[in-house]
């Protein structure tokens, strides 16, 4: 009998909270940002002072609409806010303004890429459907110190978009792929900085198990997962736990769970009996907001190309290898930099892609300050001394045979340090490739005549075609590496024939 664990089908739905990138809070003009002095980003609305009223920040609403457009969702004609009533000291009004009945984003789907067979092979693409996304206010932060509890209301009122998926995900790996895809989508569109370490992207995971074809099982919700590895580990642990329960003949209990990342263990936060009655009702302070269609179309036009659309274009239209394409589309600034270079030298996008994805990124990573995360591609690119047109020129020189690919890498390293034009570096260093057929033939004949290489010569003549390469090394050495490799090959074969 097969392992019964393999016979479970895992059903996962995610609720992802994304802090939207705006200057002001969602219902007040107070500024917000990570890491400020506690209770410095506050105003009467953020504190729920008597008489204060919420006013919808249209910039936050626009960011929510942009997310909707980026996932091909429906943007309804009208959205509205409801009050979710519960008492907790981090919740200044003891109700949260959220969108229960009329969210700003309805439906839609996020394209994800599953891991391929190897790093160089593209995995399957799939679409994960969204149920909806709603715009709400974040709460403050409660911390317990010796002698009492402290509340910081800086985060209270930060615009939060809760993105709710359909239960379309079937494994922790798929959940991870979804989060990576969503992260790329929102960061590239400037919808959110989505820095999980700063709590700008947080995730709740709903997990249930069933036998294939059976109705969906009882689900649990694990709340407040704040890293992608945490999401993955928590789901994997929860799948194992539920499978054990079911295999032991015990039903899964509907409950809300937490995740202890250090211990690698989930725990019960509250069971169904403790479920709160939030007493939702329409917020009387915010009339339903009509969403102007012309505004929606303007926002649609302002969205950047989606990462996977760009990836498809690079593969199909530019002929890039999968790995280079994936590296480039992972970062919008890098992709745009690459495209600027391609525009300057459209004949060889692959050559440009390889230099950017491998060599330029390596230089950027190596130049990062100690302690900085590497590669700091977007930040590094902005100050990078190599401009796209200069890199395009370098590839053009290589394509024209003026320098070798190896030389191109050296020139790029120099360009990275000095910002000089590639032709100037080639000239100053005397790097120009030697294509003087007469001189090269003299060197070739010298090497062929040299007894030190007689063995290789004999092997070649005995039919080992690869032995010819052993002769090229000394030729390159005797020309200080400048010999045009194609010309050397041609002359060598002629001399030996």
């Amino acid at each position, binding site marked *: 009998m097969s392992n019964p664990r393999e016979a479970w089908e895992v059903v996962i739905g995610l609720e992802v909270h994304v802090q939207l990138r705006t200057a002001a809070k969602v219902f007040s003009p107070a500024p917000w940002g990570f890491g400020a002095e506690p209770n410095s980003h506050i105003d009467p609305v953020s504190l729920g002072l*008597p008489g204060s009223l919420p006013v919808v920040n249209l910039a936050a609403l626009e960011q929510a609409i942009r997310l909707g457009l980026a996932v091909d969702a429906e943007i309804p004609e009208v959205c509205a806010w409801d009050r979710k009533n519960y*008492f907790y000291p981090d919740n200044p009004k003891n109700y949260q303004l959220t969108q229960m009945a009329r969210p700003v984003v309805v439906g839609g789907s996020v394209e994800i890429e599953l891991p391929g067979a190897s790093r160089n092979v593209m995995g399957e693409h799939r679409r994960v459907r969204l149920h909806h996304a709603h715009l709400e206010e974040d709460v403050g932060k409660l911390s317990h110190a010796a002698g009492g509890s402290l509340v910081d209301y800086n985060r209270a009122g930060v615009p939060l978009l809760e993105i709710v998926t359909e239960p379309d995900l079937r494994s922790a790996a798929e959940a991870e792929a979804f989060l990576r895809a969503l992260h790329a989508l929102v960061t590239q569109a400037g919808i959110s900085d989505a820095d999980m370490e700063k709590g700008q992207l947080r995730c709740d995971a709903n997990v249930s198990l069933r036998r294939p074809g059976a109705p969906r099982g009882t689900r649990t919700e694990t709340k407040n997962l704040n890293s992608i590895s945490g999401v993955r580990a928590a789901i994997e642990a929860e799948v194992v736990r539920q499978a054990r329960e079911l295999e032991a003949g015990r039903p899964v209990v509907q409950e809300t769970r937490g995740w202890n990342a250090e211990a690698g263990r989930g725990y019960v936060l509250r069971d169904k009996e403790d479920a709160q009655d939030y007493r939702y009702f329409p917020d*009387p302070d915010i009339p339903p907001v009509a969403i102007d269609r012309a505004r929606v179309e303007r926002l649609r036009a302002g969205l950047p190309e989606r990462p996977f659309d760009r990836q498809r274009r690079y593969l199909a239209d530019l002929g890039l290898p999968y790995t280079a394409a994936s590296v480039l589309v992972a970062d919008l600034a890098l992709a745009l930099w690459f495209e600027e270079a391609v525009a300057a030298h459209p004949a060889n996008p692959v050559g440009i892609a390889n230099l950017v994805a491998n060599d330029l990124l390596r230089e950027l990573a190596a130049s990062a300050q100690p302690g900085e995360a590497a590669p700091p591609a977007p930040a590094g690119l902005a100050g990078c001394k190599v401009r796209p047109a200069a890199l395009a020129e370098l590839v053009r020189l290589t394509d024209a045979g003026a320098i070798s690919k190896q030389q191109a890498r050296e020139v790029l390293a120099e360009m990275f340090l000095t910002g000089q034009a590639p032709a100037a570096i080639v000239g100053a260093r005397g790097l120009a490739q030697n294509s003087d057929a007469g001189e090269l033939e003299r060197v070739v004949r010298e090497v062929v005549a040299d007894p030190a290489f007689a063995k290789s010569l004999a092997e070649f003549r005995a039919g080992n075609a690869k032995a010819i390469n052993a002769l090229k090394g000394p030729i390159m050495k005797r020309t200080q590496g400048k010999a045009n490799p194609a010309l050397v090959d041609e002359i060598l074969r002629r001399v030996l024939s």
Partner: protein
Amino acid sequence: MAEPLHTLGAAELGRRLASRDLTSRALAEALLARAASRRELGAFNSLDADDLLRQADAADARRAGGRSLGPLDGIPVAIKDNIAVRGQPLTCSSRMLAGYVSPYDSAVAERLRAAGALLMGRLNMDEFAMGSSTETSATGLARNPWDPARTPGGSSGGSAACLASGQAPLALGSDTGGSIRQPASHCGLVGLKPTYGLVSRHGLVAFASSLDQIGPMARSVEDCELLLAALAGPDARDMTCLAADARAPRVLPADRKPRLGVPRALLEGVAPGVRKAFDDALGVYRAEGCELVDVDLPSAALAVPAYYVVATAEASSNLARYDGIRYGHRAARDGDIVALMSQSRAEGFGAEVKRRILLGTFVLSAGFADAYYGKALAARARIREEYLGALARVDALATPTVPSSAFRLGEKAADPLQMYLEDLFTIPANLAGLPALSVPSGLDGALPVGLHLVGPPLGEGLLLGLARRLERATGLAHRVAQP
């Protein structure tokens, strides 16, 4: 002998200030003296005399420099203690907010400052505006200047007591179910609840957000109109406040006599003295050539129950923020946070506020929300439809403001249902978002009685015009109770 300053209306005071027969400082001093002598009426929760005199001196300096800000410049306006004024207490007559000082100005405070008015004191009220007699105030009773054994009404009872005793010429009230109009009626004043959204709620402590409006109270129609003009205006800080392009006023048609609708079926149970004043008022309008039309408002009977569901539902949520964590009363108690919040609320709120929070929590609860809150919203929609329908046929709807004149303090305190019926005639205007006013129509013995007029959206001017006709006929303007 010249009339004492405290008996003069705002318009007259404005003329005297403009002609330099009077300084704002002299006026402020006279009113402070008057307030000191009528303290037993309980009109004010607090009154910052130094602050008032500073404002008066600034107004006098403006006028001396030729920089007068208009007809209200230098004239005190007393402020209900649920409307935020920067640097002044904001208690809502609740123990919960004892000692709380607002760090910001309400929109109306800003507008009054811009008009040069002096923001005067903090007026007593029912706790969080929940009540019809000012008896739920945690800061002490307010009394009716016409009979101190009786209520001035509520929740804006402090505003009414202040005006009727001549402690200020103008006052702000707030009205959720009748809290401006009922005390105006009981104290012989003109009080207007504007169309929902005409006046910004920014800085008004919320009781029931979809019903609350700030409005003017005064001793004459002219003064009421003057104050309304200063209060009304768009405000981007209140999303329910009407935009600048949605404020075209409704006026009486010039080509015909005004038409008044009278819902006779609602008048059963009106006290005889009140009924007589009402019939007299109708007589005045008939004599003026107005057409009186019977109207049927069958859903009006739903108004009180619908109101007590909608208002308490919103209140239960609006008052959740008072938990002792950030500001306001905190119980002296260690231990867990839930217990601290519970105990702070148990100590901070009075019985009526607790009753309404419990009721509102119940009607929103899972399993009950559809039967109560949902039904109440449906009733509200029907009432609004019915009132708008009636107001398409008539210019205004007339009833008494309150079924009876001011009752004795304590008489209804033990019977909340009887108390809730005080607002029978006034509540529909809040549910429908319509403008409504109370204007003195006569006397029931020594006690004033008001006529209630409800108009179409943005029909404030129309209502004030009708009120002025009655005021001219009755002569019941600028009355200040002795001593």
